[in-house]
């Protein structure tokens, strides 16, 4: 769910750019540090960016009868950490604007804040919290992805509510209006993305355990001693 090109008033567009820039610069520095220390990781980061972009082609069933697509930022935050996702989300959002006309250049700051900063940080915080409480990995992944998606949708609703206060009920009414209209598709989508994340994570632990260990998502397992 992105805010369309030209949708925000000039002042709001500039303000959201100003708010998002420090996070993206921090993310870009984290990416540059990572590539300086491990030059081979630039290809993996690029693969992660492409993966996030291509996720928009995966259709998820929705209870409203329509279908939507995962944002991928929750999964990305769990796998690659939120600062990296702030930069990668910016790249992906620019590509989505220029290659798919989805989102926009003037609304980039607002969309980056919702999808590349708020979503990943909320998802990652939930993931860390669940790990600290030693909840089952599946529960942690489900909650992380669901809350990342919900945070993205709520922040987008708040951004639109701030920009277009309702003539009768003001900003609060406008926020409630946008949140309730988008909830029809976004709440089921968040739950679906959570379930999808659990299935994907289980698949990855079966077939891509070395990659997950290398990313530090799961702890390294000691090789089992086999008695001969």
């Amino acid at each position, binding site marked *: 769910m992105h805010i369309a*090109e030209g949708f925000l008033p*000039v002042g709001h567009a500039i303000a959201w750019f100003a708010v998002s820039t420090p996070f993206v610069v921090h993310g870009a520095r984290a990416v540059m540090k990572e590539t300086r220390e491990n030059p081979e990781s630039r290809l993996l980061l690029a693969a992660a960016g492409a993966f996030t972009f291509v996720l928009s082609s995966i259709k*998820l069933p929705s209870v409203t009868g329509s279908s939507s697509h995962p944002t991928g930022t929750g999964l990305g935050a769990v796998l690659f950490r939120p600062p990296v996702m702030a930069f990668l989300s910016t790249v*992906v959002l620019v590509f989505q604007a*220029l290659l798919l006309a*989805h989102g*926009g250049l003037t609304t980039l700051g607002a969309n980056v804040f919702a999808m590349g900063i708020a979503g990943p940080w909320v998802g990652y915080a939930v993931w860390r919290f669940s790990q600290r409480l030693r909840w089952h990995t599946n529960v942690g992944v489900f909650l992380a992805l669901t809350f990342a998606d919900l945070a993205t949708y709520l922040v987008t609703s708040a951004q639109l509510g701030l920009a277009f206060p309702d*003539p009768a009920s003001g900003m609060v009414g406008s926020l409630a209006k946008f949140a309730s209209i988008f909830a029809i598709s976004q709440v089921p989508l968040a739950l679906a993305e959570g379930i999808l994340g659990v299935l994907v994570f289980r*698949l990855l632990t079966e077939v891509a355990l070395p990659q997950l260990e290398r990313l530090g998502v799961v702890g390294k397992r000691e090789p089992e001693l086999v008695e001969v």
Partner: protein
Amino acid sequence: MHGLAIDRIAWSSPWRVRSVRDKAALSLGLLLCAIALPPVPGSVLAAGVGLAVLLGPIGVTLRQLGRIGWMPASSILIGVLTVALSVSAEGELRVQMTEAGLLQAGGLALRAAAATLAMLVLACSTPVVDLFAALHKARVPAALIEIAALTYRFTAGLLDNAGAIHAAQVARLGYVSRPAAMRSASLATGMLFLRSWSRAQRLEDGLAGRGYTDNLRTLDPRRVRSATFLALTWALLASLVGVAVAWEVVR
């Protein structure tokens, strides 16, 4: 999903030979006019110029425009309808359409449509690889551009993979029910993650074998930088601002 239709249009556009500086000045200038000037006449004029440039010199056909325009159009429509509705909860919940809400929604629709057309002026005439070259010239750190460039290169292959996986799953009745659709979507997502990962590792191995230690630089053909084009762009933008200001004064 229409794949990378906009990028395909950009690769074959007659304006591809123009410099990114010239096209960006026109596109971003129109974008600024679309969102900063009053919707009537500012956004209307910006939309008209954007549409004329897209269908004229950039060479986009009406069919192509319809194909690439449905996604932003539906996104704008949902947002505009939400703005048009007014909700009040005094006593009982009331959903209504007020004149102020309709006016705001109409202006918003014009502004968003004009801004989208302005953005398409750049997107439909400039392949993304040309933007990377322009970013190099603007001294953006090479490591960041390279990650963006590699992301773009991986994207094309992965989109083909995603399409092939989806077609195979549909042929195996993978989306006939909700549980089957969730299973198919999760398998597709997992497979795409693994393929993107293995593709990156294979590219890394191949480049390491060729002594790759630095940036992946590609040839950047010379582009036409036209002072006349730039002057006409500034004149056009100035006249849009002038008409908008005159309109307000006359009103």
